C-alpha cells in the first residue's frame, strides 16, 4: 500500500512542541499542588511536588538499571533454539 500523505507528527517541530507542552503541564501540576490541601497517611508524600519528583527519578533509575541489566541478561534471539 502506498501512502504519500504527510502527517502532523512527521514534522519534528511539532513533536518538540508537544514535548514543551508536556513540561508546561508538569510545571502547572506542581504549582497546583501548592493550593491543594492533601491528606496523606505517609508523611513524605505531603511534600509539594513529591509525586512529580518521585515519578521522574523512579523512571530514570528504572531505565538506567534496566540498561545495565542487558549486559547480564541479553542473549541472541535464537538463544534457546540452538
Amino acid at each position, binding site marked *: 500500500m502506498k501512502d504519500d500523505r504527510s502527517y502532523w507528527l512527521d514534522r519534528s517541530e511539532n513533536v518538540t512542541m508537544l514535548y514543551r507542552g*508536556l513540561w508546561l503541564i508538569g510545571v502547572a*501540576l506542581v504549582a497546583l499542588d501548592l493550593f491543594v490541601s492533601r491528606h496523606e497517611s*505517609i508523611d513524605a508524600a505531603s511534600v509539594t511536588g513529591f*509525586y512529580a519528583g518521585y515519578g521522574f527519578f523512579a523512571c530514570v533509575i528504572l531505565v538506567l538499571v534496566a*540498561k545495565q541489566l542487558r549486559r547480564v*541478561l541479553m542473549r541472541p534471539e535464537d538463544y534457546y533454539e540452538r
Partner: protein
Amino acid sequence: MSADFPVALILILGALAVPLLRGSVRAVYLLLLPVAAFAWLLAAPHGAFGQVQLLGQTLVLMRVDRLSLLFGYVFLIATLLSVIYALHVKDTMQQVASLVYAGCAIGAVFAGDLITLFIYWELTAVSSVLLIWASRSNSASRAGTRYLVVQLLSGMFLLAGGLLHWRATGSLAFGPIGIDSLGGALMLIGIGVKCAFPLLHNWLQDAYPEATPTGTVVLSAFTTKLGIYALARAYPGTEMLIWIGTLMAAFPIFYAVIENDLRRVLAYSMNNQLGFMVVGVGIGTELAINGAVAHAFADILFKALLFMSMGAVLLRTGTVKGSELGGLYKSMPWTTGFCIVGAASISAFPLFSGFVTKSMIMSAAADGGLLTTWLVLLFASAGVFHHAGIKIPYFAFFSHDAGIRCNEAPRNMLAAMAVAAALCIGIGVYPGALYAILPYATSYEPYTTGHVVTQLQLLVFSALAFAVLMRTGIYPPELRSVNLDSDWFYRVAAPASARLCSRAIAALQHAGGSLVDGLTRRIIERAQHERKPQGWLVRSRPTGSMTLWVMIMLLGYLVLYYSS
C-alpha cells in the same frame, strides 16, 4: 429456575455443539453462550447449590456469594469479548478450547470444595494449552508443553495440600485456609504458580507470547485471575503475601523495559499488576480485599484490550517486535486509539479504570503504615506507565516510521476493542457500579482533588522522564534479543547438568568396566596359564621341599614360644 445447575456447564457443554454448526449460525451461537451464562448468573440467588455426595463428602458445585459472583461476571464479559474478537478465526479447535477453558475457570470460581476446585483447576490447564499449540509452530509446541507441565504441577501442589488439609481438619470446604499447616503451605505454592509468584512466574512470559493472536487474549483473562480469586478466598490477610506482592510489582518492570517482543512486555506488566493484587490480599483489610478484586476486574478488561491491540498488529504485520514496528498509527488509527485507552487504564489515568481500582490498594498500604511497600508500589505505578502505558503504544504505533503499510484490523476485532475500551472508561468515569458489587460495602472516594493532582504529577513526570531519555538517546533501543529469566534454569541449566551427569556416569561406567574387564581377563589368563604343564597349580613338588617348609615352621614356632 434451579440454581443447582453449574453455570460453567453452559459454556463447557455448549462448546461441544460448536463443531456441528456452520457459518453465521455458529457465530451467533458462540455469542449467545456467554450471554446466556451471564443471564443465569444475574438470576442466581446467594448460597451453596449443586451439592453432590461423593465418598461420604459433600461437593459444592455452585457456591454463590459476592466474591465468586464478581469473578463470574468479569470472566463472562471476557469470554464474550474474546468471542467477538475471534469471530474471523475459522479454527474449530480454538473456538471449542476457548469456551471450555473459560467454562472451567468459571467452574473453579464457583467451586465450594477442594475436589471440585482441583478438577476445574487441572481442566483449565489442559484446555488452555490448546490455544498455545494452535499457533502450530515448533517453538509454540515446546512452549506449550512447558506451560502444561508447570500448570499441572500447580494442580498437584493444590491436590497434595488439599488432601493434607482434609486429613488435618476433616473438611473439604474451600474457605480461609492460611499457611500455618503443611497442607495450607503446599496449596499456597500451587495457587502461587497460577498467580505467577516470583520464580514461579516465568511460564507466563514464556507461553503467552507464543499463543495465537486471539488465543493470548483468552489466556490473559483467566488463569492468573483464577489464582488471585483463590488467594483472596483462602489466604486473606497473610502477611507474607505483602512481601511477595511487593517484589512481584517491582522486578518485572525492569524486564519490561528491555524486552523487545511487545506481547512479552505485556506479560511482564501482567506480573506487575498481579503484584498489586497480591499485596491487597496480603494486607487483608476490607479496603485492601476490595481493591485487590476490583483491580483484578479492571485488569482483565484493560489487559485484554492491550493484548487485543497487539494481536491486531500481529495479525496485520506478522510481528509484534518493537525493533521492527513503528508508525503504525497511519495504517491502524482505530487500533492505536483503543490501545491508548488500554494504556491509560493500566497506567491509572484519572477517568480510566485503573485509577479507581489500584488506588484502593495504595490507600490500604498507606493506611496500614506499610512505608516500604507503598514506596515500591508507587515506583511500580510510575514504571507501569513507563513500560506499558508509553512503551507499548510508542514503539508499535509511533516511534520512527518503519514503513509498514497495512489494513486496519478486521471489524470484529475493532468491535471487541471498542467494547473493552468503553468498559475501561465506564469504570473510570462511574466507579460506583463496580464498587457496588465488591465483596465489602465501601465508601471509598477515588476522585479527590489531591488524588487527581498527585496521580497526574506522577504520570506526567514519568512521561517526561521517558521523553528526556528518548531525546538524549539514553533510552535503550529495541534490539532483537531474548533476556534470561528464571526459565533459564529449566531450559538451559537443568538439561545441561543432566547431560553432564549422564556423560560422567557413562565415563565412569566405561572406566570401571574396562578396569573390571581387565582384571577378570588377567585372572582367567593366569589361571589358564597355571593349569598348563609346568604351571604352578599342576606342578609336582619334591618331598624334600615340604620337609624344609615344616622345619621352618617349627623353628618359627620355637622362636615365638621362647620370646614370649
